[in-house]
């Protein structure tokens, strides 16, 4: 009888381990953008890890200290041999945050909190922890890490309160606008996102005076900020093309990569 019980117990433990193993393999973070790949919990646990204490500062000002175990983001990037300018973190529940790489020196992909696997309630199994950034950026239920640079996105920066880094698919998150206008002597229709909407989302600074558009081949054009901001028909298409109704064709920049508010 003893043997049977011990046998059943051993089998259960073995099955338990296998099922846990399967669970770890199943949970995957997609790496997209400048490098492509899949990072499982098992992959992450096999990488050099660090244990540390960190204080989560909530947007109400409340502070919560916990111990964490995880892998430095820079080690993960090294694995993919890539140095993006910006990184967007996407969670299963739809929340996302984009940060400049220079602000992510203390970013970790964590899988343990207070000595235990991170529970679902606490955002596990993998949670982003950035020890020197506010808690609202410590994304739970991480599912995707987008690696961004001028190669695959438009950056809106300068005199803005938020830096926006937008891929082609991010432009879909904004209202699309269609216009019909003259271009090189022909009447054509274009669809895209209004530059005004993007500037509103980036929260331009109140003393903004100029706006500069830069293309992939470093061609730049500069305008008065108010002139562009007040014209809601100026669009950016999914192909990152600047649509400038009423302006000469030389201003219709292709392969736009940067909008800088000055």
């Amino acid at each position, binding site marked *: 009888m003893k043997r049977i019980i011990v046998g059943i117990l051993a089998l259960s433990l073995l099955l338990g381990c296998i099922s846990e193993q399967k669970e770890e393999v199943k949970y995957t973070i997609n790496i997209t953008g400048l490098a492509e790949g899949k990072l499982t919990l098992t992959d992450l646990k096999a990488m050099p890890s660090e244990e540390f204490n960190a204080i989560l*500062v*909530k*947007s*109400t*000002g409340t502070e919560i200290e916990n111990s964490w175990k995880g892998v430095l983001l820079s080690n993960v990037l090294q694995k993919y041999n890539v140095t993006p300018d910006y990184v967007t973190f996407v969670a*299963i*529940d*739809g*929340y*996302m*945050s984009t940060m400049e790489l220079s602000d992510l020196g203390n970013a970790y992909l964590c899988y343990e909190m207070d000595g235990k696997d991170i529970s*679902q309630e606490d955002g596990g199994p993998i949670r982003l922890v950035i020890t*020197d*950034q*506010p808690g*609202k*950026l410590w994304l*739970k*239920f991480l599912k995707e890490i987008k690696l961004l640079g001028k190669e695959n996105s438009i950056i809106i920066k300068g005199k803005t*309160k*938020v830096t926006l880094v937008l891929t082609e698919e991010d432009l879909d*998150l904004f*209202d699309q606008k269609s216009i019909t206008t003259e271009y090189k002597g022909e009447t054509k229709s274009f669809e895209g996102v209004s530059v005004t*909407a993007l500037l*509103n*989302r980036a*929260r331009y*600074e*109140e*003393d903004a005076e100029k706006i500069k558009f830069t293309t992939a081949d470093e061609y730049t054009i500069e305008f008065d900020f108010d002139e562009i901001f007040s014209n809601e028909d100026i669009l950016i298409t999914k192909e990152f093309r600047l649509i400038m109704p009423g302006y000469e064709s030389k201003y219709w920049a292709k392969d736009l990569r940067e909008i800088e508010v000055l």
Partner: protein
Amino acid sequence: MKKFLSIFLLFIILGCTEEWNFYIIDDNVKEYSLSELKNFETDVIYETVVGKEIRKVKWEGVASNTLGEGDIINYISEDLYLVSAPYNVDVILAYKKEGENILKEEGGPLKIAVDPNYGCKCNWLKYLKIVEFINSKNSLSIYGEVTNILYFSPRDLNVFYSIEDIIENRYNRVSLNKILDKAIYKDKAEKITFVTENDRKTFDLHEIKNIDPEVIYEEGFNIPSLNLENIIAIKIE
């Protein structure tokens, strides 16, 4: 016994009919009840909730940008928490979750539900009392190395006192440290820049914190002790 039952019933009825009032502020202040809000056109925001399974939760309410004009909307809770969001972000004044009234422990009866593509869950302000439409050019914003980017209308200097003070627009001054604390600046922040229409003046953040000057609204946001007039923004670096 009958008397006891009657009193009990009366309590239940009073409990059920307890009304939640809130204010919409643009050029004027208007008070609304939750019942009145329910007469407006309904909008919906879906939230993805991760539990044993991933499911969509339906929040119903009224789109805030159908209730006024501005380029920023401020939301203020009963406990004076402040969220500033751009006008064109999808936000609803939510009074129903999955078809039921929102429970008190979830921030009901009135809270805001925000498009998940914008920011974090911390924007889902509970116990909503004030919706204020702001023109950013007439406000004082605080941004940079802060947790919360905020816009203060002159009236919002009262957010450090009480809902009633905001409604009455009772005070026109507050200590700068209170504004900084509301925005929660990051530990690494070292400089503070005051942006006026034509100028920017930068100071050491810690020195200014020690001085804790008063911000006064008098036809513009001013800090007399630093000789600063018509401040439109504060940038923390």
